């Protein structure tokens, strides 16, 4: 056929050859001037497909939150308008032009945010228990994140469509696969927070609970519990967020309180937390290191580092590796098994770097949803 096509095109003088030549020249000219526009249109189509998917996730997040509030909270009125108001909530970070004291300012703003969220949930679900309220708060936060993702991607999509500027379209198109991965992770969190199922981030509190092994605990800071165990002649103080409702607590405050209470007796501080794995690493791999293993905006990390530095306590860390898709999704088997390995790792660190009679603090960092103490 291509041979025939070649013959046709070579016969310039024929009627059909002339038409085809004109068509090819026209196509070349069109492509020369409109190639970028065609590329932009193709990318916009792909963004549109993803946007529809994100919208479904956002809507599901909102519906799950409304249904859970109705189930647990037994409100007198339909909570939908309150949920819609909640998912539009925002936080303005403090100005950092003068960095002195910015952590305290951020901490203060975050405290107000937490207080506001708790009050909103109490109003929406008056009959819910404390654990259920904590889970509902986390569920609403997941819905809020899904809503924000949807609005940001829609913003770039509409802006790209309006201007047909390839650079605006490309900005969102390039990072779309990563964003979709994050959105899928947050949509998996809806099931976990609605039902109170442990999530990937709960590995730290699970390790802490396994170390405590039923030892009595008491409240040491906001939503933070601590208990003591004896291990190979060492006194080990274990702290974690108060479960089983979804909460990360204030580990910085708890550690600061415990270190100061012990008045220089603490010889070692170990933090256990979930950590992002690199591609190629196995889910549930354990890694040991130094420093404070804690995520978030940095306020709690600052408090831990400050308490450790002021009291000259060495900081050790145990990380349990997991993918972005595992962090807020219901806990997978590999991570559940990894908690046993992490317990062994913590015990190994204690034996290697402390002596009999020493006091050690172990903090299980993360969301304690579905994990008791």
């Amino acid at each position, binding site marked *: 056929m291509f041979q025939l*096509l070649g013959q046709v095109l070579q016969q310039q003088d024929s009627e*059909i050859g002339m038409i085809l030549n004109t068509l090819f020249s026209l196509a070349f000219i069109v492509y020369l001037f409109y190639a970028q526009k065609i590329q932009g249109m193709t990318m916009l189509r792909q963004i549109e497909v993803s946007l529809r*998917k994100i919208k*479904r996730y956002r809507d*599901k997040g909102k519906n799950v939150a409304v249904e859970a509030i109705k189930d647990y909270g037994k409100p007198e009125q339909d909570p939908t308008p309150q949920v819609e108001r909640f998912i539009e909530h925002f936080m303005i970070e403090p100005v950092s032009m003068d960095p002195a004291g910015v952590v305290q300012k951020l901490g203060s703003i975050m405290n107000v945010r937490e207080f506001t969220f708790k009050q909103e949930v109490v109003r929406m679900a008056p009959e819910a228990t404390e654990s259920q309220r904590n889970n509902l708060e986390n569920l609403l936060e997941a819905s809020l994140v899904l809503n924000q993702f949807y609005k940001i991607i829609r913003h770039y999509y509409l802006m790209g469509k309006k201007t047909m500027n390839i650079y605006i379209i490309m900005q969102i198109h390039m990072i779309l696969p990563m964003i*979709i991965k994050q959105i899928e992770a947050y949509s*998996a969190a809806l*099931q976990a927070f609605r039902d*109170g199922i442990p999530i990937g981030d709960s590995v730290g509190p699970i390790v802490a609970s396994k170390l405590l092994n039923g030892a009595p605990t008491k409240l040491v800071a906001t939503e933070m519990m601590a208990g003591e165990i004896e291990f190979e002649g060492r006194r080990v103080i274990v702290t974690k967020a108060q479960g089983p409702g979804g909460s990360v607590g204030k580990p910085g405050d708890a550690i600061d309180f415990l270190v100061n209470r012990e008045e220089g007796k603490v010889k070692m501080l170990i933090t256990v937390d979930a950590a992002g794995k690199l591609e190629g690493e196995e889910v549930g791999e354990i890694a040991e290191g130094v420093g404070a293993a804690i995520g978030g905006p940095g306020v709690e990390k600052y408090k831990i580092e400050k308490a450790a530095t002021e009291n000259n306590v060495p900081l050790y860390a145990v990380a349990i590796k997991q993918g972005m898709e595992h962090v807020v999704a*219901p806990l997978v088997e590999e991570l559940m098994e990894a908690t046993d390995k992490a317990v062994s790792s913590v015990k190994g660190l204690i034996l290697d770097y402390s002596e009999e009679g020493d006091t050690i603090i172990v903090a299980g960092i993360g969301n304690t949803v579905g994990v008791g103490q």
Partner: protein
Amino acid sequence: MADSDVGPLAGATQNWTTLALMVVVGAIALASLYMGFTNYGEGNMETAFMYILIGVSGFVAIGFTFFKAKPATKTQDGPKEVEVVTTLECPQCNLKRVRAFQPGDYIFKKDEPCTRCEGMMTVTRINARKDPKEKKD
């Protein structure tokens, strides 16, 4: 799941009916072009022109579908929920029982009396059941 939806030609290729139709139209268009050039070679100008017109129109229609067809996706109901299981163990006789997760379960909850001894069974694990279709990372 995500990657396939944002891949090339995401909108049009999501719908298998559209895709099948496009393959059929493409095949017809290709055959028409072949017939057109063959007829041209034989000197049947009018027939050749008709066939080539049909062929070109077919390819134009396919291109148009890629850009204008309404995107359809596989999942219309949003994300799927995973199956979660609870493992209970008796600390006295080590009896182990696995059942479906029930709201209210949490790790280290003393849940129900042991069926083999006098002890209370404790929830030791709660985890999502592995999807057999899930590929390894």
